[in-house]
């Protein structure tokens, strides 16, 4: 079964190819059917391969599907490698991707461009699968840029509106900043190792570099730059809230579950380099900690349902970066998986709400949807509970609790990381339940026009179940003690080094985390259900901070002043293009001389004869003078 690995990325690619080439002659139903079934098949193959790997305890499987190119002694192939890390990503991409595809059939039912939509979505899944399966960095970069392209195409999917196009371009350009750093990092890696094979690099790196080596640190920082751009972390996070201009299934698949976590995958995949560059690894953690806090604060103030979720995504990826930074590799991957479940669920549920209310995004114009849309309400509640990490019953608790505890207990962690994570957990609980209470409780403000059908409800239900039980594959030491996830990842990712005597504090940390989360939920309950007027008072009392957070800490304004305006100013100066002046000058000089000399063509025959005569006389005179 495992030799069918190459089919997993190929199937979505074929789907995209068919939809692009024959899309116009297919009915929308057929197109949606093709789009879904290729992902469904890929998911099925993933399931079979995963079963085989888990039962036979294969640690890794490599397969060269095809030769790509050869330059001098560098040979790059479409070589795939399946190990535990890529298996987890493979599962999430194909399964969550499949459910989102099914949901999209309902969501995009009335849209003119749904064939184009499924073509892009299939291409995205293909690129993402190539990214996580790639055995060499060049192929991974192909997938990396492929998902960037699809993200651009899908954010700007409704291109009739100019602002969607701007959002798409912003996302493309911002991530490109990171990708440039990543590309330079890859060049440097090639320069040092003369190969782009990931396993070879990871094996050779410890032999070549000592811990803290300067080259290793520079490369680790450059790779981090790429990860920061793709995963919308500080300082390149501003594109993600705007990326919500795309359709909701896109936000769920690309901007929550899969693509934005590519940065996490990259760092986890290249963990060997980061182990050798403690400074860079520490910065991964610092960036994660700061990002999770500032994005959480922004989420507190947003009124657009999808923007809240967007900031929440940035914040949760901040948790994953924090986990990577403290060496809690498997905790980061675990949180990635659980986050993919509940955030895809939240985005799909939010999409349903927005879809039912005629594209109304403002949560303060919603309200009272609890009774009208029970399925959406319950699934959204489960997703929200998982995001806020409600203790014991939700999957989010187990994944986030692990990060919280390791932030305290890991040898590379520390008090500050722990405080940031704890504060982040509190903020998460507040904004999540603010969103739930305002949207689904209270009185009905907008009437839900059309209710979602089965195609949209089933994916919601499945993802809700996953968001509840997904956490039980990894239970903490204090109760249960299940370690399936970390056991699975053990051959790929190193275990976290704890500092001495940390084990005893685990139960304390869990209790603190639970209390903080429940405190956040009750605060939201108090502010938005019991005393709604209080929320407005708080808002007007700290209006300046509110506005700052609402504008995402004004990073957009800062970048506008620092980069966009000087660039626009320079372009305005150079509007006439300095280099081009030379060529324009050449052309106008030619034209000038042409016009001048054309005056000598009088059309009078005798002038021409005169000219010939004078010329002949001059030539004769000269030849007589020069050759006596």
């Amino acid at each position: 079964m495992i030799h069918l690995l190459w089919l997993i990325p190929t199937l979505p690619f074929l789907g995209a190819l068919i939809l692009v080439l024959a899309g116009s002659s297919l009915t929308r139903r057929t197109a949606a059917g093709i789009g879904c079934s290729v992902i469904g098949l890929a998911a099925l193959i993933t399931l079979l391969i995963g079963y085989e790997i888990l039962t036979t305890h294969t640690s890794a499987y490599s397969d060269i599907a095809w030769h790509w190119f050869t330059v001098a002694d560098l040979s790059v192939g479409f070589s795939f490698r399946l190990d535990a890390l890529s298996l987890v990503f493979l599962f999430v991409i194909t399964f969550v991707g499949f459910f989102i595809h099914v949901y999209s059939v309902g969501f995009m039912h009335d849209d003119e461009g749904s064939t184009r939509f499924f073509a892009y979505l299939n291409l995205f899944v293909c690129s993402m699968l190539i990214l996580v399966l790639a055995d060499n960095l060049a192929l991974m970069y192909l997938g990396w840029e492929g998902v960037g392209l699809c993200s651009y195409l899908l954010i700007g999917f409704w291109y009739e509106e100019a602002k969607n196009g701007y959002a798409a371009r912003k996302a493309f350009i911002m991530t490109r900043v990171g990708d440039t750093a990543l590309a330079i990092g890859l060049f440097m890696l090639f320069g040092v190792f003369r190969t782009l094979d990931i396993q070879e690099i990871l094996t050779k790196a410890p032999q070549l570099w000592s811990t803290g080596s300067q080259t290793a640190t520079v490369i680790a920082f450059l790779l981090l730059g790429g990860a920061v751009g793709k995963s919308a972390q500080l300082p390149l996070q501003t594109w993600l809230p705007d990326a919500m201009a795309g359709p909701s299934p896109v936000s769920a698949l690309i901007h929550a579950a899969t693509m934005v976590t590519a940065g996490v995958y990259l760092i986890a995949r290249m963990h060997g380099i980061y182990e050798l560059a403690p400074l860079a690894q520490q910065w991964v953690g610092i960036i994660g900690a700061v990002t999770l806090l500032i994005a959480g604060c922004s989420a507190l103030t947003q009124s657009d349902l999808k923007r809240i979720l967007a900031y929440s995504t940035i914040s949760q990826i901040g948790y994953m970066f924090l986990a990577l930074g403290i060496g809690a590799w498997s905790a980061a991957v675990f949180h990635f998986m659980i986050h993919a479940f509940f955030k895809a669920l939240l985005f799909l549920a939010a999409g349903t709400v927005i879809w039912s209310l005629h594209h109304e995004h403002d949560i303060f114009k919603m309200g009272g949807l609890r009774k009208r849309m029970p399925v959406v309400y319950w699934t959204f509640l489960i997703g929200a509970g998982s995001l806020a990490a409600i203790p014991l019953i939700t999957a989010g608790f187990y994944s986030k609790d692990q990060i919280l505890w390791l932030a305290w207990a890991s040898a590379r962690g520390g008090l500050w990381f722990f405080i940031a994570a704890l504060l982040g957990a509190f903020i998460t609980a507040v904004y999540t339940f603010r969103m739930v209470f305002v949207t689904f409780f209270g009185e009905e403000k907008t009437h839900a026009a059309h209710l979602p059908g089965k195609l949209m409800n089933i994916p919601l239900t499945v993802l809700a179940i996953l968001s509840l039980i997904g956490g039980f594959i990894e239970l903490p030491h204090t109760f249960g003690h299940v370690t399936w996830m970390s056991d699975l990842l053990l051959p790929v990712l190193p275990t976290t080094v704890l500092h001495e005597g940390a084990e005893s504090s685990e139960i304390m940390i869990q209790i603190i985390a639970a209390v903080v989360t429940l405190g956040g939920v009750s605060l939201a309950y108090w502010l938005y259900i019991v005393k709604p007027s209080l929320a407005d008072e708080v808002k007007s009392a700290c209006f300046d901070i509110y506005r700052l957070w609402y504008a995402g800490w004004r990073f957009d304004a800062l970048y506008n002043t620092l980069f966009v305006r000087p660039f626009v100013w320079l372009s305005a100066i150079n509007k006439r293009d300095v280099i081009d002046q030379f060529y324009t000058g050449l052309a106008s000089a030619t034209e000038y001389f042409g016009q001048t000399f054309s005056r000598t063509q009088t059309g009078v025959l005798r002038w021409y004869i005169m000219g010939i005569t004078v010329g002949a006389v001059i030539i004769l005179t000269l030849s007589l003078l020069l050759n006596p």
Partner: protein
Amino acid sequence: METAAVEYGLVLAGTLFVLGLISVLIRRNIIFMLISVEIMLNAAGLAFIAAGARWGQADGQVMFIFIITMAAAEVSVGLALILQIYHQLKTLDSDAADKMKG
């Protein structure tokens, strides 16, 4: 037979050539311009004859026959053009045919 000095022949040819040239330049009637061109051709022919006689070679006379042949062709084409010009412009003034100015 005493041959005339070659210099006389050449001076005569030169004079004829310059006269022809001047008359081409100052005449506006196309027929007179054509006649002047004939004079210039014959001046050139005379120069060949004189030179051929000076060196005792037949080449000069061969060239002259060529020139006569060419002049005949030239006159026939020239006259046809003159007829056309007259047909189109109703005048023989060469300055009137200046439609091709740049």
